[in-house]
């Protein structure tokens, strides 16, 4: 029924990025694997935000709420309630999606700056809850979060190398699913809403339902990223839920190239590596990160993905 997709430039770029990640995985030392896991998790989080911001055109400053719910659900169910991890991860995603349904019913009625403000408010509410929650250790956070167990098939995820490979595979799967989503008729409608909402409404499209669906989908992927982050650090704290976490994800999306999926994934790699190397040189690394961000926005605002695309076009023109 659905036509087989033509291999888009985006998919080729994604394959190249995955190849680079795999080469990096083979060459990395233990700490390199830690960074790779961090990049993969941030990439999932950024791609989920890109679904919402890049494709549907809804800029959210509360996306960390869903990331945090995924993380806290994982910590609560696994560390406190003792659930097995194979049940914990889908439940964590489901809880993030559930929160998104409740929040989204109100949020999708608003547009522009009002949407930004209500997502910010939702994020702060969840943060305040975690900050005061005795059960989850309040601001001190909660440790002892286990990782998913694949011992039965001889995979030990406590080993940083195997865990980073696991997160990389999950990130690749998330890209695969998200790419199919945005290329499907459903995804085309989302892009249509982004480009001209009134026209879509005039065509008889139930715009709010589509927005809500995008909101919930993005939230469940964010919940997955949060669950992985909790497992990676074996620890959760309200810091995961602060609005700066949402802001950071937005920066990653913009650095990588908004509305390109693969761009935000590459942006995650650039962001983590830059933060790691800059903070080793100077305590004022955020200043230089800010300069870099300003430079990216000034050079067209379509991020690394757009930059590479333009360079390629310029090269092919030059060859002719």
């Amino acid at each position, binding site marked *: 029924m659905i036509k087989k997709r033509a291999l888009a430039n985006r998919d080729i770029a994604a394959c190249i990025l995955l190849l680079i990640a795999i080469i990096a995985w083979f060459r990395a030392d*233990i700490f390199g694997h830690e960074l790779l896991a*961090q990049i993969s998790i941030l990439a999932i989080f950024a791609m989920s935000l890109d679904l919402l911001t890049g494709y549907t055109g809804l800029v959210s400053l509360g996306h960390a709420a869903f990331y945090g719910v995924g993380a806290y659900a994982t910590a609560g169910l696994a560390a406190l309630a003792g659930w097995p991890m194979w049940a914990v991860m889908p439940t964590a995603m489901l809880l993030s999606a559930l929160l998104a349904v409740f929040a989204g019913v109100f949020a999708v009625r608003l547009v522009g700056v009002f949407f930004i403000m209500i997502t910010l408010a939702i994020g702060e509410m969840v943060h305040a809850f975690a900050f005061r929650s005795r059960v989850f250790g309040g601001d001190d*956070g909660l*440790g002892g979060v286990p990782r998913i167990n694949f011992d039965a098939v001889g995979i030990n995820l406590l080993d940083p190398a195997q865990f980073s490979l696991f997160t990389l595979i999950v990130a690749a799967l998330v890209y695969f699913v998200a790419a199919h989503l945005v290329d499907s008729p459903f995804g085309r409608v989302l892009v249509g809403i982004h480009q001209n909402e009134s026209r879509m409404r005039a065509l008889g499209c139930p715009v709010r339902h589509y927005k809500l669906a995008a909101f919930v989908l993005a939230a469940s992927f964010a919940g997955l990223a949060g669950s992985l982050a909790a497992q990676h*650090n074996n620890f959760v704290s309200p810091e995961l839920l602060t609005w700066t976490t949402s802001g950071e994800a937005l920066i990653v999306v913009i650095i990588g190239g908004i509305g390109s999926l693969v761009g935000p994934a590459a942006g995650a790699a650039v962001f983590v590596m830059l933060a790691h190397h800059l*903070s080793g040189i100077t*305590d004022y690394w955020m200043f230089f990160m800010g300069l870099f961000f300003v430079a990216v926005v000034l050079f067209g605002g379509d991020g690394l993905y757009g930059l590479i695309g333009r360079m390629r076009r310029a090269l092919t023109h030059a060859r002719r």
Partner: protein
Amino acid sequence: MRSWYVAWIAGLGLAAVAQAEETIKIGVVLPYSGVYASLGGDITDGMQLAFDLYGSEIAGRKIVLITEDSEVKPNVGLTKTKKLVFQDKVDLLVGPVASNVAGAMRDFVHNAKIPLIIPNAGNNLLTGEKCSPWVIRTSFSNDQINRVMGPWLYEQGHRTLYLMAADYSAGHQMMEAVRRGFTEAGGEIVGEEYPPLRETKDFAPYLAKVKAIRPDALYVFFAGGLAIQFVKQYQDFGLKGEIPLTGAGWLTSPLFLPAQGTAATGFIGALNYVPTIDSEENRAFQAAFSEKHQRTASEFTVQGFDTGRLIVEALKLTSGKTADKAALVEAIHRVHFTSPRGPFRIDPATNNVIQDIYIFEMRQTGYDIRHVVIDKIADVQDPPNGCKM
């Protein structure tokens, strides 16, 4: 050309290995940016002074500090810790300042079996229920500072107490410690308030309740901007001189005192160190520190100083050997010395410090507002609190 290049790289590798054997690497995870940057700076300066005074080379191995900024973010602190252990291959770790960062680091160092010496974070659980043979604390537990104040205030004739602290884990843990001591002695808690940590600007609604209830004393814990605002508003509200102000001693830390001014006088607090302790060791320490840095050493500096000295003394006991981590921790347990804050040792049962707690009053002499020590509780030791090594 190529073979020369390979030889050069190999040489670099060899040099790195040789150096790794020579130096003792200490990984330091402290905040050097953000709200706790001054604490991170004080602790590092204190540690450096200890190495200057007690030896920065043990059995031919030089002590090298590798510092990383925790940014007061748990995940950043944990990533930096992993970098220090996996990439720099440090022999032991020092840090952090904040309890949430300590919580994130705890599981990792416990599993990696790398000794971590905490020079500040006071969460009771770190040397209680969540204690680890590899996590040693040279600073205090929230309980340790406040527990002694309950019975002490009762002895001073106070029968009713009102509690107030910022609404976060440390605030609640400290108030809990006072409540237990005070009610066990026979006193009564007549009210308590927990204003939000960051949003509170105006204490008037809380102070009005205190004024209406009229407790024998008010017991508080605030730090940073809240400490400054609270002390000033307490005076402006007309409670000063009416209801005695007592609390955890950070309220009038040397860091906040300039902004508080004379409003701080009359406060009675408990802390593990004040700059005015009258002892040979403290005078020598303050003199050495102010000669190097032209400022008064704070309680945070002392915590860093004692951390540095503990490391040096323990390494002397192991003749500079760091490969056997269990032997290193065992040496840490054997170290005893007299610190600027009094007798210092680590309790092997919990890995928390055993130390004197000073009860002081803020008094004005001339233009100076000083901490005047009015009492001392010697050798305060935490009960195990559910700690099983």
